[in-house]
């Protein structure tokens, strides 16, 4: 029993672990204990852009304040000397950062320095800092130096991304470029492996790695295996032993790391989607859990770090504290609209309750002998007053989601995204199409040229055999008339030819969408969201290729796709090249990592899949997170060669 509980805790939120690590770092590297009557200590936090990206989804400005941070500044900004204040640095160990830090030491900006490096720093760079500290006679001021091993960004409880600042370096395009050199590939792989290594150090577990053969994923797997093995063998300095691991050590199961390459499934990133979070990512500017809306009123809302000021834009943070978001981020959009309505209703009811109390109290003041009424009302008043902050917070969330959902709805209506969604679902499940593709493409008022391009690419990718030359020419003409850029098509052709040589094209499973017609409950409630003309589509469970791969690997099922996946176990003394797993039991925890980019559709699919399985956990990670338009851009760059 205890073992099982520990195992569940071990797979627990990567977000919590990273937050705990960050808080400990901010507390001068001493575990943080909440002390109500403790004396205040104040400090200054300095980070670079990498650090900023890591911290901003996890800690809000208020939480930073609670930890005693008075100022948070970017490393490369102009900073004034603030005497008598300890400074906590959280930076990547790059050349420029080190130079800037040495400069700070020379200028004696702060009283004491706590240096924390996001990933491990090399010996030579450490000596550079030592040199500068000596030159500035500031060696005693450098109080602590730590390697934090936090080189990844956690967006959700079970989703992480490698990096945000230098995503071009590890993007799909960078990996799949035909003119890539070996050294460049090495650097890219090293970056990815470094982040994955940090991830496993923070998670506190050594995984069993499985990957497909002949892809970028295999290279990553080989390197990661080597790195983990070296670290484990060095028993003195191993990061995976020791009492800081805690629960991770007691779990009987090691997690499974599935490394897949983006090329396994190119249709999903292009797919039009229908769930709330994926829609927001697709349609609006959604970035590191923050969505930017263009509005006529310009109110800006900026937590950690200096963000450039923009006019007429509103940004909202969609965080883990937002209960509505957590509940509905995977629901289909009409459900979301309904729930917002419901929340609004209940909020209004509570507000009326509070207002009614006001009138009762007024009444009660005149009536002399109403002592019994008094007893009731003081209790009610106390509860109303204490629930007021909650009500205000609820109102703010409702406003937020109303605005976001309205913006999304605008896009859906102008681009007719529901039609596209339905159509693509049908294509991907190979059911009969009621409208020919040519009609869809030449339809002038349905969607931007990009949407049409996406639709056509999905059709092309999932067709069993390529359409004939004549058909292709027809399609191309229609597409160019609609204003699309045809370069992605070049690349997809090449990819398809290559993919056909490598393996059979993947199928997308059976799916059926039932349009619920125009007469739905949503419209009858007279909601704010005028959903006429938007079909109320119901999603049926389908498994994307990535989910299917995970399923067969996790449950040890035999599947022609995954049977020849390579198997790595860093804890084994000798590496072997076999594909036969030594462990025959199904895994309880899994981490899916997509090399080359991922998106929220896959994430949602995995979450739905794992919901049906009791006691199992899945974490989803990707080297970068892009939405369809960004992916199309990369494809067109690739196709231009």
């Amino acid at each position, binding site marked *: 029993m205890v073992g099982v509980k520990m195992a569940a805790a071990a797979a627990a939120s990567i977000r919590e672990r990273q937050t705990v690590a960050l808080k400990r770092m901010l507390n001068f590297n001493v575990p943080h204990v909440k002390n109500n009557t403790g004396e205040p200590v104040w400090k200054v936090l300095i980070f670079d852009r990498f650090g900023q990206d890591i911290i901003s989804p996890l800690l809000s400005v208020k939480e930073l304040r609670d930890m005693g941070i008075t100022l948070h500044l970017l490393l490369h900004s102009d900073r004034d000397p603030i005497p008598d*204040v300890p400074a906590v640095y959280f930076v990547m160990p790059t050349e420029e950062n080190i130079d800037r830090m040495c400069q700070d030491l020379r200028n004696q900006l702060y009283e004491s320095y706590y240096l924390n490096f996001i990933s491990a720093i090399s010996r030579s760079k450490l000596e550079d800092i030592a040199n500068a500290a000596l*030159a500035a006679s500031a060696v005693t001021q450098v109080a602590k130096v730590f390697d934090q091993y936090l080189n990844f960004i956690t967006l959700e409880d079970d989703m992480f991304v490698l990096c945000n600042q230098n995503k071009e370096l590890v993007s799909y395009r960078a990996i799949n470029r035909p003119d890539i050199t070996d050294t460049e590939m090495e650097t890219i792989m090293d970056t990815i492996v470094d982040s994955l290594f940090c991830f496993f150090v923070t998670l506190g577990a050594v995984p069993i790695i499985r990957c497909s053969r002949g892809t970028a994923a295999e290279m990553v797997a080989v390197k990661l295996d080597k790195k983990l093995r070296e670290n484990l063998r060095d028993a003195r300095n191993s990061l995976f032993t020791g009492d800081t691991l805690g629960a991770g050590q007691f779990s009987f199961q090691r997690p499974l790391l599935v490394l897949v390459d983006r090329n396994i499934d190119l249709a999903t990133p292009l797919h039009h989607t229908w769930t709330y979070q994926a829609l927001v990512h697709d349609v609006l500017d959604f970035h590191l859990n923050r969505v930017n809306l263009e509005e006529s009123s310009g109110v800006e809302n900026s937590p950690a770090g200096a963000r450039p000021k923009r006019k007429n834009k509103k940004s909202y943070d969609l965080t883990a504290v937002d209960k509505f978001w957590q509940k509905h981020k995977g629901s289909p959009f009409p459900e979301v609209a309904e729930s917002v309505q419901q929340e609004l209703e209940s909020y209004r009811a509570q507000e009326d309750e509070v207002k009614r109390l006001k009138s009762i109290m007024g009444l009660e003041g005149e009536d002399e002998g109403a002592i019994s009424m008094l007893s009731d009302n003081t209790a009610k008043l106390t509860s109303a007053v204490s629930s007021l902050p909650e009500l205000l917070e609820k109102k703010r969330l409702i406003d937020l989601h109303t605005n976001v959902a309205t913006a999304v709805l605008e896009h859906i209506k102008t681009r007719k995204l529901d039609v596209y969604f339905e159509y693509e679902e049908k294509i991907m499940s190979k059911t009969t199409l009621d409208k020919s593709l040519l009609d869809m493409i030449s339809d002038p008022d349905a969607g931007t040229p990009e949407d049409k391009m996406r639709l056509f690419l999905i059709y092309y990718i999932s067709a069993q055999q390529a359409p004939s030359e004549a058909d292709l020419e027809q399609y191309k003409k229609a597409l160019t008339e609609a204003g699309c850029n045809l370069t992605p098509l070049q690349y997809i052709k090449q990819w398809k030819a290559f993919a056909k040589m490598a393996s059979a094209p993947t199928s997308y499973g059976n799916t059926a969408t039932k349009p619920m017609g125009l007469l739905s409950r949503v419209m009858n409630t007279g909601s704010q969201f005028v959903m006429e003309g938007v079909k109320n589509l119901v999603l049926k469970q389908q498994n994307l290729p990535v989910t299917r791969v995970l399923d067969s690997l996790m449950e040890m099922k035999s599947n022609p796709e995954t049977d020849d996946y390579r198997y790595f176990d860093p804890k084994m003394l000798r590496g072997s090249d076999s594909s036969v797993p030594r462990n025959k039991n199904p895994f309880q925890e899994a981490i899916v990592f997509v090399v080359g980019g991922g998106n929220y559709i896959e994430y949602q699919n995995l979450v739905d899949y794992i919901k049906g399985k009791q006691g199992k956990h899945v974490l989803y990670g990707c080297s970068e997170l892009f939405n369809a338009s960004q992916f199309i851009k990369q494809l067109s760059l690739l196709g231009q060669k």
Partner: protein
Amino acid sequence: MAVDITLLFRASVKTVKTRNKALGVAVGGGSDGARDELFRRSPRPKGDFSSRAREVISHIGKLRDFLLEHRKDYINAYSHIMSDYMRMTDTERDQIDQDAKIFMRTCSEAIQQLRTEAHKEVHSQQVKEHRSAVLDFIEDYLKRVCKIYSEQRAIRVKRVVDKKRLSRLEPDQSSKSTESSSSEKASQNSSEESEEKSTTEENRDKNLTEAQSNFGLWGDGRGEDELSPEEIQVFEQENQRLVGEMNSLFDEVRQIEGKVVEISRLQEIFTEKVLQQETEIDNIHQLVVGATENIKEGNEDIREAIKNNAGFRVWILFFLVMCSFSLLFLDWYDS
């Protein structure tokens, strides 16, 4: 998990030092380092601000320790177990309250002073932000310590009120009991007296007249007896009624007290909120006053402008009329 490489850093400092010495590079480190560091530290502005801030924090810390130390005695003494070692008298408690209040007042004044001074000397935005954040932290700390104090005091006040209530109830009950006991005694006395009377009467008469008189006298005696039990009953009934009334009054008063305590708590919350809004409302007030001033001035300016415009027009008109008259005059003069 994070890896502490401080030792590695110190080791690399040593290697760099030895390497520099070996290369003969002039470096500020080495044996002069310690002295240099001292030199460098003293001219550094030790920051009045931060040292004063730390002083205030240590004061508040002292207050907190003081309160926590005596907290047990403060609260505990109302237990009925007499431990005369630790008992605090009321005067001592009042003293503690006074001291704590004075302390808190001085601390908050010090914080205010720091706040006004903090912004005077510095020109850098970052330092200003930092200082105001530091002052916020200190104020928050003070608030938390004050909460300890107010909790203690609330408990004490509650106990005083409870005690008063209990002590008030006592004399009522004791007076009732004395009343009933005295009435009982009175009835006892009267019955004894009547017995004595009847025996003496019997001794005096031995005939029928004796019996009759006895009977008569005995009847009289019993009549006296019968009167007092009735009175006793009546008194008892009245007692019962009075007790019932007192009890119900007592219950009502207790309820009202509870409600009043709740109301006072609510009032506290309200005053807190109102005070929070006070500064904002002041701001708004200032802005509004400024705005009305501006509008007044604007109105006057407009009026002047209208006047000037009108005046200007009058002058133009006059000029044109004069021109035309002069033309007419010249014309008349010529012809």
